[in-house]
């Protein structure tokens, strides 16, 4: 029983993290029909920018950060990353709005490499790993049976729920959300109804990048800050991308559902399948394989994703 509770908490925390990042992929895809490969680098920059912002306030020493440190850093980092996402769109993607999708895709990979390599420059974030853990100690808030409820896990879950609910309300309950859905459905007709498509795209990138920043901070709290060029960020982004595809790319609720499924597979395989094959450690070490295996299965049997609708080719 304790086991189940602990793996459930882990699943929710890891899944929440993936969901925050997956939403960025799915929002941008929903509007522009292209995969923003630079998204995982915005996540990485989010983690590192949080460190820089904490440094500005002098909150980098262990125990030196007040209780409001995390909310302040979170909000500021999200704002900076939102501006960053908007800038990337303006400079790199907007000029290619009418170009073939492949050009935009390759540009996105270029932006990704740029962010990775600018990030490790000395004057930027540098080429040594770091940590933002001094911002907040991972204290134990309580115990249920033998299971410790740790602050990082609960915070990740709480922040994710708050942001996903907020996004849901934005997309399905506001004028901007309606405009986003209209543009997603038919950009040209939306423009003819007076919707400023560029503004909608700007807002989409701002929201996606802000969520990525939150994901980056939560990931960095749990895993420390690897270099911006480190492959672990790409893997994180890739899993979030898989979550978005599994849930049905372009679908906000699907991204959250896909993220939970991916996290479930990862955590439970690690825990239970690993325990069954205790003498064969490679079985649980292959957890990434299972994640991408899910992707293959979904693409084979339900290519539009779990919550996605079968795409009707427009003619």
């Amino acid at each position: 029983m304790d086991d189940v509770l602990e793996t459930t908490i882990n699943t929710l925390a890891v899944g929440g993290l993936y969901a925050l990042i997956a939403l960025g992929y799915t929002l941008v895809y929903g509007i522009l029909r292209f995969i923003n490969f630079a998204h995982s680098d915005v996540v990485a920059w989010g983690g590192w920018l949080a460190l820089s912002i904490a440094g500005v306030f002098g909150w980098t020493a262990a125990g030196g950060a007040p209780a409001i440190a995390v909310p302040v850093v979170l909000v500021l980092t999200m704002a900076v990353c939102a501006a960053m996402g908007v800038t990337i769109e303006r400079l790199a993607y907007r000029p290619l709005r009418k170009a073939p999708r492949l050009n935009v895709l390759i540009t996105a990979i270029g932006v990704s490499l740029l962010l990775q390599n600018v990030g490790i420059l000395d004057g930027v974030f540098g080429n040594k790993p770091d940590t933002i853990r001094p911002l907040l100690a991972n204290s134990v808030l309580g115990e249920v049976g033998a299971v410790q409820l740790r602050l990082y896990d609960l915070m990740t879950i709480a922040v994710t729920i708050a942001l996903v609910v907020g996004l849901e309300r934005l997309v399905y309950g506001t004028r901007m959300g309606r405009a986003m859905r209209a543009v997603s459905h038919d950009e040209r007709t939306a423009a003819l109804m007076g919707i400023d498509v560029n503004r909608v795209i700007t807002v989409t990138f701002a929201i996606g990048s802000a969520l990525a920043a939150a994901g980056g901070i939560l990931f960095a709290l749990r895993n420390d800050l690897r270099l911006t060029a480190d492959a672990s960020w790409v893997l994180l982004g890739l899993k979030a991308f898989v979550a978005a595809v599994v849930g049905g790319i372009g679908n906000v609720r699907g991204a959250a559902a896909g993220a939970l499924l991916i996290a479930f597979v990862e955590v439970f395989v690690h825990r239970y399948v690993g325990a069954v094959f205790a003498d064969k450690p490679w079985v649980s070490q292959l957890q990434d394989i299972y994640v991408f295996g899910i992707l293959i299965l979904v693409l084979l049997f339900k290519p539009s994703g779990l919550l996605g609708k079968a795409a009707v080719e427009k003619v």
Partner: protein
Amino acid sequence: MTGASSGAGHPALETRALSLSFGGLKAVSEFSLAVPVGGLCGLIGPNGAGKTTVFNLLTGVYRPDEGEVLLGGVRVDGRKPSYIARCGMARTFQNIRLFGELSVLDNVMTAGGVRTRSGLFRTLLRTPLHVAEERALAERALALLDVLGIAHRRDEQAKSLPYGDQRRLEIARALATEPRVLLLDEPVAGMNTQEKRAMRALIQSLREQFGVSILLIEHDMGLVMEICEQITVIDHGVTIARGAPAQIQNDPAVIEAYLGVPDDAAAAAGPEGAA
């Protein structure tokens, strides 16, 4: 005729020598037209004559190579479609282009949102201004659906509506942008006689009820001749006739464009004369 019946002195919509080529093909050539304020004008022509291309030029989907588009005397050619829509030009589509995944009400509210004032932050924070605007928007959208007779379908997905109701919803959505000029692209295409009759009454009532001036593309000659005050006929992008319905019906150039040249006349004119 320019401005003849316009109170402010400007026609609601005016074009001056609009031209557009696709590669070497002249799709629209020196197209001039004036829709007086409160007027109901028709634009007809055989298939492929360039009627919808004219609508695309008017709404900014295409940028004219030459010529001007004036909305209430103000030039709007070369502007973005969203800007032109905000200036008061709204349209429907020959092939219905609703936001199919959105509800009927959301379709109308999407178009109505362009005139509200609260920005993104107010939206996110749900300030009283935003909440009040949303409520007013929804009420107005519902009123429009009511006028179009589809209010009872407000929560259905737009794509699930029957065909005739989809056309009505397109008109409701266009009206939600509070247009001065309404462009209707084949509003009765695919409708039966009864539906056509209802649509005709509706189109006529829109003028008084919403104070819009209407330009109509339609293949149904009966409808066009009955309700339009002035008709422009184009063929291969060239204006071949313009006038009151009675004039148009008897215009030899129009008859030729629609029916072709009679055999004996074609023989007399030689092979070059047969268009």
